[in-house]
């Protein structure tokens, strides 16, 4: 980047010295220069699953910056500049990374910033972020197309599609679906559970369960009575980090003691990003969740 600045400022001085004639020449030479698109892509990747897919395609060296939701693989945020939260991007910050393309999850913004970026000539592509298998596969294909990596993308999407198909097959063997509750954390001892219209809800469905908290929308804190009423057969703890602390012996006290899950001591802990990210690893995550929910089905296939 420093190099680029040095180069352009040298050009700036040249223009100032030589005046309009030189400017005209510069215009000509600019017209003759190779188009930006043909140069190597420099991507700002905004959205966890998008970054994950680019890494999975082995194109990580084309990423010049990521956003704070790009949690996987961990080296993304460790090694790449961070342009901030996907809803609060900085126009100049993004441009400072000299990108030629920004791939962002739908909902990235603010809209004014996106407008500025587009007016600065940056190509901005927004990708659908629905928590669905179709969306995952579409995202892989689209990113492959954008990066001109059709073959690796094809391979990845075929693999993922196959995994999803296997998942469908396995799901059909489930005799009695379990009521599953995905918990994102505890606040003063009360569980924050995932209702409908969440990635967790979609994941439960993929893994062949029924969302025990399906009576509500979004993520909400559940009262003790609501927990008992939801009657989950299994609890899934979505862990934000490795050091997430569970209330000691969750089944020994409170409302969870009275749930069917307590009887079988079914508590599944999985990484939140892995579980809810809806990226290339989602099929695996769903397989894993299914295997842990239905140990007998697990024998069928990984």
């Amino acid at each position, binding site marked *: 980047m420093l190099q680029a600045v040095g180069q352009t*400022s040298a050009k700036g001085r040249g223009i100032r010295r030589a005046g309009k004639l030189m*400017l005209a020449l510069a215009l000509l030479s600019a017209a003759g220069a190779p188009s930006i698109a043909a140069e190597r892509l420099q991507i700002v990747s905004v959205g966890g699953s998008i970054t994950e897919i680019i890494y999975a395609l082995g194109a990580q060296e084309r990423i010049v910056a990521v956003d704070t939701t790009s949690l996987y693989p961990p080296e993304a945020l460790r090694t790449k500049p961070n342009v901030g*939260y996907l*809803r609060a991007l900085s*126009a100049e910050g*993004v441009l400072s*990374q000299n990108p030629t393309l920004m791939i962002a999850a739908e909902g990235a913004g603010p809209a*004014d910033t996106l407008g500025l970026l587009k007016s*600065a000539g940056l190509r901005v592509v927004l990708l659908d972020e629905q928590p669905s298998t179709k969306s995952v596969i579409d995202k892989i294909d689209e990113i492959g197309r954008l990066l001109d990596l059709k073959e690796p993308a094809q391979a990845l999407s075929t693999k993922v599609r196959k995994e999803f198909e296997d998942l469908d097959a396995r799901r059909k063997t489930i005799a009695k679906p379990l009521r599953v509750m995905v918990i994102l954390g505890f606040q003063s001892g009360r569980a924050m559970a995932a209702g409908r219209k969440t990635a967790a809800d979609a994941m439960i469905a993929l893994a062949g369960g029924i969302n025990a908290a399906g009576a509500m929308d*979004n993520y909400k804190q559940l009262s003790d009575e609501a927990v008992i009423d939801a009657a989950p057969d299994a609890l899934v703890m979505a862990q934000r980090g490795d050091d997430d602390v569970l209330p000691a012996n969750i089944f020994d006290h409170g409302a969870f003691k009275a749930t069917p899950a307590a009887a079988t001591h079914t508590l599944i802990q999985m990484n939140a990003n892995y579980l809810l990210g809806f990226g290339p690893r989602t099929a695996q995550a769903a397989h894993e969740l299914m295997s842990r929910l239905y140990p007998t089905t697990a024998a069928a296939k990984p």
Partner: protein
Amino acid sequence: MSAEAATAAQVRSFVAGRKRRTHLGFLILALVVILSVVVALTSGPIAIPPQRLWALARSTFDGQSSGQSSPGLARDALVLFNIRLPRIVLALLLGAALGVSGALMQGLFRNPLADPGIAGISSGAALAAALMIVLGHHITGVDAALMQTVVMPLAAFLGGLIATMFLYGIATREGQTSVATMLLAGIALAALAMACIGLLIFISDDRQLRDITFWTLGSLGGANWQKVSVVAPMVTLLLGAMPFLARGMNALSMGGAAAFHLGVPVQIIKTVCIVLVALAVGVSVAAAGTIGFVGIVVPHLLRLAIGADYRALLPMSAMAGAALLVIADAIARTIVAPADLPIGILTALIGGPFFLWLLLRRNRNIDL
């Protein structure tokens, strides 16, 4: 009698000293504003050294569209004129508006704790913004981009204005506005708005919750010339009314009755003050969310430095507020570059300790 003459001479020299101090204050502040703008122009995640500014300005004015001169120059020109400059101008306008509004509201409510949003603007705007973030799509049916660029700012502006008009209506009886009633009603309204926002937070999803949080912390990230062109007239109105309002504010510091005795059209001053502040702060909040602390700290800081006379305090509040916000924003976009830090965090981080330091070292006999 000669003793009195001697005292009179002392008083004159004291007054002359104060005047010199005020003039010096204006000079220093003007320099600070200019310096902060230059620093802000040349700092950001994209390195544009000061000596390059001139070349960029030349290229923009020479060639009709700078986009063709050279890619690097074109990009830098675009960053400078379409991203950084509108941001700086917006920061200047908002800082000035918040500084002046804070000083005016403190004077109007005769309360040193008053902030620019005290007359309901903040509560109303925050509630409207939260409403749009959480339920805007259901209510208006517009897409996300239109929501963020037009509908939400408009809603925040109207929300602030409606809240202010409501409070003003409650506090005004027979053509007389009771600032005490307005203050109390404002507290009740703020509590009510907070409760409604709490309700909205309860039904919001993760992303909406984060949007509300970011909005509350304020940001100049989305600044563009369009926003500047909307904000500028409102702020100009407020700044233009300063000389008129300053005299009234000085008299009002002795109370409404005393101000009336002095010939101040108290009700007109109150109304003009509330309307102009509501417009300027409302449009500011709509453009950049709530930016705290500038409006409360800047006037007090200046009172400690140059005294309470509003004729100097108001323009200086405008200048100091503008400089503070420009500097805070320059830091906001460089400190965690290429990300942006919400500016509200920085105004409090810069203003808070400085204010505390001033309070600690000040002369004991100055009481706010």
